[in-house]
Each structure stands twice: as structure tokens, then as C-alpha cells.
């Protein structure tokens, strides 16, 4: 789907976040020359289409002590991936969970699940928990531990179009 001009302006205005004031939608609407009702209607529509997933806080894992992250990868039988992927994604400590293409010969893995924890032992325990759920349906797995953040930025929408 493509975005209308109003929606693009709304997204651009909200990329940095929502103002922390009692009536935040009214405040944003005023800067855009829209009514609060119109802004709320567009936000509701963008939630409906999935352009906005939710309006919420993004916590900083590091400042909350969750300084380790591991990208666990699994070679899961194709006919079970939908069922098992849904189960792994539902785990409270998994932040991202995707099926991605295998890339033979050196990359047999098709399920990616990111786990976070306060130390190496904690992420190892979480990997073990995933392994228990997948059982024999996973033929191989690995965990790629992050050693350094090289870049981290939010979504930036271009100015064109």
C-alpha cells in the first residue's frame, strides 16, 4: 500500500515520538493544522492497516540490565515451522521471531529468534528452553552472541515523494 500525503506528514511528525503532555494528539494535530479528531481517525486507520503496530514506550534493554543478546538460529522441519515458530515467538523473552530462507551449504537455519538477558548464562538458559520446545523438529542450531552495537537508529522516512 502507498501512503497518502496526510499520513506521511503524520508519520514524519511522530518519528521522534509523541509529546509527553496531557493531550498529545491535540498537540500534534495543531502542529499539522489538523483537527484532533482527524488525526485520531488517521492513526486508527494506520493501526488497522498495520503501518502503526502500537503507540508505546520503547525500553532501553541495556539500561534495564539486559546487556546480552543472542540471535538463536534453528534448522526446523518445513512442515512444522508455522506451528513451532508461533510457539517460540510467544515466549516472553523472545523479541523477534522470523522464518528466513536457508542459505546452503553453510547456513542451514530457517528460524531466527532473538533473546535478551542480563548475562551469558541467562541467554544460554533461554536458548536451552527453546531447544526443549523444538525437540527433534530442529536438526541443528547455533547462537550468535552480540559483541558490539555498531549502529542503532530508528526508522527515518525520506523527504521525497
Amino acid at each position: 500500500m502507498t501512503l497518502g500525503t496526510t499520513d506521511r506528514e503524520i508519520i514524519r511528525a511522530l518519528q521522534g515520538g509523541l509529546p509527553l503532555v496531557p493531550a498529545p494528539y491535540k498537540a500534534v494535530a495543531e502542529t499539522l493544522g489538523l483537527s484532533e479528531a482527524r488525526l485520531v481517525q488517521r492513526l486508527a486507520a494506520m493501526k488497522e492497516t498495520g503501518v502503526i503496530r502500537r503507540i508505546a514506550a520503547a525500553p532501553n534493554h541495556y539500561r534495564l540490565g539486559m546487556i546480552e543478546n543472542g540471535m538463536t538460529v534453528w534448522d526446523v522441519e518445513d512442515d512444522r515451522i508455522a506451528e513451532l515458530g508461533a510457539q517460540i515467538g510467544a515466549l516472553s523473552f523472545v523479541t523477534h521471531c522470523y522464518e528466513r530462507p536457508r542459505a546452503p551449504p553453510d547456513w542451514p537455519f530457517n528460524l531466527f529468534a532473538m533473546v535478551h538477558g542480563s548475562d551469558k548464562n541467562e541467554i544460554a538458559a533461554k536458548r536451552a528452553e527453546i531447544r526443549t520446545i523444538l525437540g527433534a523438529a530442529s536438526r541443528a542450531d547455533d547462537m550468535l552472541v552480540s559483541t558490539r552495537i555498531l549502529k542503532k537508529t530508528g526508522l527515518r522516512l525520506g523527504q521525497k515523494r
Partner: protein
Amino acid sequence: MTPLDDIDRDVLNAIQDDLPLSHRPFAEVAARIGLDEQELLARITRLKDQGVLTRFGPFFDAAAMGGAFCLCAMAVPEDAFEMVTELVNAHDEVAHNYQRAHVLNMWFVLATETPEGIDRAADAIEAETGLAVRRFPKLQEFFVGFRVAA
């Protein structure tokens, strides 16, 4: 940073849920956890200033806007790592980039406004670095119920 108190923890847990689209949304959330609106706003502002929150606002899905995401990986020789990092990070399409302990030691996400933009950016990085950019587009996303329990 001052340690989080119990009220901060309640706030952190409550504000990871979707904010209502109402005239006074923070008043509604505050009522749920027994605070008043001003107190909640003051605490969110402080948590943000302290860096406990990266941001507060809408989570956008670039794919739903017609754009695309792709996870990419490279096997970068150790002695070229800093140089390659600079070349990769200079691309605006690189949303985040992590070093990981593996032969494929650089993992980054490309976010572009069109699906064609992914290959364009990845091909440009290959040309600049002389290294292969392995592409792992998502085939299926599984719903994640993740919340940081504070």
C-alpha cells in the same frame, strides 16, 4: 542513574502496552496503575531523560508502508572491520548493525522505502567493500508478545 522504584516499574510495564487514542490517554493509563496524570507524565519524562526509555510513540512497520526490511550478514576480515563498519554505517538504509561472534560477524538490517531499494543498497555495499552481503529476507513473521518485565 537513580535506581527504579516500584512505581517506576509499574509505569514501565504499563506504558509498553498500546496507548489509547483518546483525548487524555495518559490519564487513562495513570488510573490503571493508581497514579494521577501529572505524576505519570513526570515519570515517563524522567525515564526518557535517564535513557531507560529510548522513545515513546508509535512503532511503525516500514513493510506495511510499502517499504522493505532485510536482515543482511557479512563475513568481514578482522583487520578490515573498522573500515567496513564505516562504509556500511554510512548508508542511511542501515537501520542497525551488530557485531556478532561468528564467521558471519557483521549483521545489519536494511530498511528501504521500496522492495527494490534492498538490493540496490546491498549491491552498493558489496561494490564498496568487495565483500558479499548475504541477504536473509523474512519469509514469515511470528507474533511476539515480548515486554520487558521491569
